[in-house]
């Protein structure tokens, strides 16, 4: 029993419900509340790491909390092992900086904005910590319905269209997950992850296949993998840049967590192998990578280009995870970390740059490099990371992915990885060149702040720089991250550890 786990969910939840009341009295009080809760939530995450440091280093880290003191398999169990800790740390770290970025970036309706942001935070921690399959479904829906208003946050036509699409796809994905939950409950009479994992092999092959297919469909629709990617580029580009960073960088990774947890720990990887689904997932994910890169190449809008690049990288992560060797899992998790850092920093820098341009198109970016030298250098550096150039984290993760593909004989995967890097080089260099183009007859007011809101620039640029520096520093010292990742892989590969952890004692 560990009370900190429930606090990780409750603190953002309570903050979200307090903000409207505080907002009535004064703006300043709301700001203090937001800053306080953000720091509190972040420090709870740090506290979990520090207080359990010895068990983290010797791979025996496991925390759990029984909600309402119901002993599993009856009640809802919250649990945290190395895999959850990895994702929870990523969420806390990026959300801390995204909230601070928003303080300078969002100039209107801030009260509503932070309510939704904290609800998303609570939902993400809920997904990462929960040990109950229906609870997972509820948190997935909560994450969907709180992120959709933020997609439409600008209240323009584009954002509304994107949010409608996002809601339709997300809800249908949620329905497939719910059908999966129904089938699990009907066949096994339990909702607890560990209990399902224990009894799942006793089912006949047809039910196993049906359950896996429904959960896969649900997760892939919500994630935006190739045949269901139609909502993604719009939703990830129509919102304010801070939310783009959140959607494209963090929320997508939470779905990766759900995918790993369900198909390695709960249902077991054997089920994918028995039914041949792993081959199908592998092919679909690689097609998703190729399509993402091609569509990014076709795109003339910088934010949509970044969104398509997310589809491509997502496909690569899934393809490499589904190989299921130790090296492949390591590569997948490392790319989760690297893509999160790079995409968030790309969107934060782009968000700043786009304040000075008349639009999001390629031509609109002309000459921004001369106006915002430092921030555009940051953009260039991180774009280099996305391509896979050495000092950045992107190099390390792409190198591991390449190694994993070659070692396990999936040569097509390695060809697509290298080809993807070349594609990425082409579509990033277009924007960088455009940024360095001299303006022939630029009117001086071209660079005035286009939006009526005056942004407090300092915070925005500082956070963007923090992410750019993180990309470089983690890229240089990425070997430090390999230790915790080994622990996470240990959890992924041994479902019995998870079952023991929840049901035993």
């Amino acid at each position: 029993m560990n009370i900190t786990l429930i606090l990780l969910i409750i603190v953002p939840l309570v903050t979200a419900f307090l903000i409207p009341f505080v907002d009535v009295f004064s703006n300043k009080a709301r700001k203090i509340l937001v800053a306080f809760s953000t720091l509190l939530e972040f420090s709870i995450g740090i506290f979990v790491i520090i207080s359990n440091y010895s068990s983290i280093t010797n791979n025996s880290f496991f925390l759990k909390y029984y909600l309402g003191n119901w002993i599993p398999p009856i009640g809802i169990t919250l649990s945290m092992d190395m895999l959850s800790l990895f994702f929870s740390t990523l969420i806390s770290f990026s959300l801390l900086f995204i909230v601070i970025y928003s303080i300078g970036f969002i100039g209107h309706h801030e009260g509503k904005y932070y309510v939704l942001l904290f609800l998303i935070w609570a939902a993400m921690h809920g997904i990462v910590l929960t040990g109950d399959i229906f609870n997972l479904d509820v948190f997935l829906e909560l994450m969907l319905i709180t992120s959709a208003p933020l997609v439409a946050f600008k209240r323009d036509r584009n954002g509304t269209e994107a949010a409608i699409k996002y809601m339709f796809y997300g809800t249908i994905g949620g329905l497939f997950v719910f059908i999966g939950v129904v089938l699990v409950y009907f066949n096994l009479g339990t909702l607890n992850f560990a209990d399902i994992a224990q009894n799942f092999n006793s089912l006949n092959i047809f039910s196993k296949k049906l359950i896996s297919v429904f959960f896969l469909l649900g997760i892939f629709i919500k994630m935006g993998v190739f045949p269901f990617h139609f909502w993604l580029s719009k939703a990830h580009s129509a919102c304010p840049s801070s939310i783009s960073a959140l959607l494209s960088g963090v929320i997508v990774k939470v779905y990766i967590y759900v995918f790993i947890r369900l198909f390695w720990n709960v249902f077991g990887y054997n089920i994918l192998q028995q039914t041949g689904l792993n081959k199908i997932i592998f092919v679909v994910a690689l097609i998703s990578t190729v399509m993402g890169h091609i569509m990014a190449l076709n795109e003339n809008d910088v934010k949509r280009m970044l969104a398509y690049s997310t589809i491509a990288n997502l496909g690569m992560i899934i393809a490499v995870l589904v190989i299921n060797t130790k090296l492949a899992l390591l590569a997948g998790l490392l790319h989760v970390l690297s893509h999160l850092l790079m995409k968030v920093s790309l969107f934060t820098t782009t968000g700043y740059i786009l304040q000075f341009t008349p639009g999001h198109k390629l031509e609109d970016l002309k000459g921004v490099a001369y106006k915002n030298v430092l921030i555009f250098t940051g953009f260039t550096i991180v774009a280099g990371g996305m391509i896979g150039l050495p000092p950045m984290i992107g190099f390390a993760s792409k190198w591991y992915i390449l190694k994993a593909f070659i070692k396990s004989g999936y040569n097509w995967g390695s060809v697509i990885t290298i080809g993807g890097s070349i594609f990425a080089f082409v579509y990033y260099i277009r924007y960088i060149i455009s940024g360095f183009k001299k303006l022939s007859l630029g009117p001086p007011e071209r660079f005035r702040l286009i939006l009526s809101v005056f942004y407090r620039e300092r915070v925005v640029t500082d956070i963007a720089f923090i992410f750019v520096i993180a990309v470089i520093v983690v890229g240089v010292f990425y070997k430090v991250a390999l230790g915790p990742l080994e622990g996470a892989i240990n959890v992924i590969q041994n479902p019995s550890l998870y079952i023991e952890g929840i049901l035993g004692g």
Partner: protein
Amino acid sequence: MINNFVFVVLFLLGFYAILVKKNLIKMVIGLNIMEGSIFFWFITLTDRGKMIPIVNGTQVASQLNDPVPQALILTGIVIGASTSAFLLTLIIELDKFTSSTNPDQIGGMIED
């Protein structure tokens, strides 16, 4: 057996509405039909034909229906209601910009 059949028919009916109908509100109705079909299916699937699960201390567990599906479906209904409410709000918002509820003006559902 009949409940599985009805579930599949209703689910596909809702899905058909989302794919074919040229009115966003009708598509939301289709979404609701899909949701409703799953709830209906779940409640009939787990029904043992026994007493309603209101425990007053005199029954034993084997005399009662399983209360868990009902709790899950109640949660599901709440989620569905909030989802459709929010979708309808967005459609009103879109109507302000375009004065129509045709999904083609947002590029259809399978076009990015």
